[in-house]
């Protein structure tokens, strides 16, 4: 019984991390039609930056996570401004350039932080387990869930209740018309790209105490983000949320019950969605 519960808690935790990762991916894809294959690398870069801040400079965990997020956001902004901007509309070139950057980032990380996995200590104060009735929960995992919920709510407020959000939604729906009514879509692109990159970097550091930081983390996370977005529908925040939790559950239960076929189980819902509802659960049909 407690095994199942633990698996469920782990699933929700992974779902929360995946949401932070895929929300940005989904927004970038929905708004800019850019399949940002660097997203896994941004996650890994955030984790490495954060780990360095904590281990080498003895910064507090959360400050390190936020700084890592900001640094990765700045890096994302540079990629968008200087490379992707020149390739607007040419999907093939965007895919190749983002893939090329992800190779360079992976090699850069290998060069700077070597191939040994780095483990990051759970932030003090969140170590140990909480007893709720007869049940025991690891506190740090509960904290991740809470943070993911808060960020999901903040993103929803941003997109649904603010002027910036309205502009982003207009840009997703109809970029040409948005330009016509005077929205500077190109500036939105940079903002959204930085936001998505920053969330990915922050998520990387938040996941570090659980997943640890190692070369190949990028290639582990990118397919998960892709599947979440295919499942939930590109450009849809609720889609990312639901997709993340579905994948979080499938990943953990698949690993526990069918370890050899875990990857297969993971991609099964994607296949079903593609066959039955190609635009994703919450997506709108693409013309």
């Amino acid at each position: 019984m407690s095994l199942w519960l633990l698996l469920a808690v782990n699933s929700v935790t992974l779902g929360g991390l995946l949401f932070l990762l895929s929300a940005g991916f989904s927004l970038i894809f929905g708004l800019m039609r850019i399949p940002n294959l660097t997203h896994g690398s941004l996650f890994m870069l955030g984790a490495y930056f954060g780990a360095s801040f904590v281990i080498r400079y003895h910064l507090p965990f959360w400050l390190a996570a936020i700084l890592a997020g900001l640094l990765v956001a700045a890096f994302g902004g540079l990629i968008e401004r200087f490379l992707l901007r020149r390739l607007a509309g040419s999907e093939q070139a965007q895919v190749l350039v983002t893939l090329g950057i992800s190779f360079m980032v992976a090699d850069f990380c290998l060069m700077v932080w070597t191939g040994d996995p780095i483990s990051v200590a759970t932030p003090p104060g969140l170590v140990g387990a909480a007893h709720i009735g007869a049940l025991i929960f690891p506190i740090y995992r509960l904290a991740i869930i809470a943070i993911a919920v808060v960020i999901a709510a903040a993103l929803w407020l941003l997109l649904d209740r603010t002027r910036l959000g309205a502009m982003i939604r207009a840009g997703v729906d109809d970029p040409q018309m948005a330009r016509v009514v005077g929205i500077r879509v190109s500036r939105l692109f940079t903002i959204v790209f930085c936001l998505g990159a920053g969330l990915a970097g922050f998520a990387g550091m938040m996941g570090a105490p659980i997943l640890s930081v190692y070369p190949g983390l990028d290639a582990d996370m990118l397919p998960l983000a892709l599947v979440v977005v295919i499942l939930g529908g590109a450009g849809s925040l609720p889609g990312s949320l639901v997709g993340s939790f579905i994948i979080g559950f499938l990943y953990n239960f698949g690993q526990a019950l069918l370890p050899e076929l875990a990857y297969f189980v993971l991609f099964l819902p994607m296949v079903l969605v593609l066959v039955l509802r190609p635009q994703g659960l919450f997506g709108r049909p693409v013309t």
Partner: protein
Amino acid sequence: MSGKRVALALALLALLTAPFWVGGVYYVNIVSQILIYAVFAMGVNILLGYAGLVSLGHAGLFGIAAYATAIALSAGLPHSAAILVALIATVAGTAVFAVLALRATGIGFIMITLALGQIIWGLAYRWISLTRGDNGVNVVARPEILGLSLASAEAFYYATLAVFLLAVAVCAIFVASPFGASLKGVRDQPRRMNALGYHVWGIRFCACLFSGLLTGIAGILFVYYTQFISPQSLSLTSSAEVVLMVISGGSGTLLGPLAGAALVVVIKNVASAYIERWNMLLGAIFVAIVIFMPEGLVPGTTRLVRRLFKGRAARAAEDARP
């Protein structure tokens, strides 16, 4: 035209005599490797160059062929049966790939093939009872053809060359055929082709199968070449490498894949002797080619050379052309 023929004849002569002038077994093996990757790149080129579909999952198909051969051999099947099993498995796998990935085109196709390629990588990595996980599967011996053993580097090189030349011939016929023309039509004007009564999905599906067949042949050659297959060969990096070969060589050209494969294999082997950061170089080449020479090295260089030799007036005329 005759100049082109002379160049082709010289290239063929160079390939046929390669073991005698490259100087050593190591280099013969490098040329074999180039030819194997050229066949792989030709398979990817069918989709990328002629159907306009970028696949980032082809290393998975390559891996299906290699693993099927290795596993069938270790189960005790003879070489001919193992090769047959591998080809059938690869084409069947490609059919599943295509049915799923062709739900979309453009970015959707790229993302779905990437995810599917990662599934196969994950299976190779995790399904330890079948694939032995990270340890990989060994192939004990290379086959014999008509009593001739392919164990030596030279013999294997000539077998690979024969397969490569056959693949080039088949590709040339494929591209020049009415089907090839309809494939290019579907790439450029899918709606118009649909209105003309062509079955757009069916044409793309057949192109996928052909591409998968070539990829499978390359996978079988590869597993016999290295006599070993591990999940490493199925990674996203491998898929990306072969896409880089096609694009750098010039997609949609018959011999572009050979040029691209030669470039990547040579850089990889030469560069890795001097610097450790091969992936950094690969990424940088990727970014540079896409930004500065999006049409590929062969057409790009041809264009640059032509511009260099033409006068200013001719250059202006070339620029004015759409």
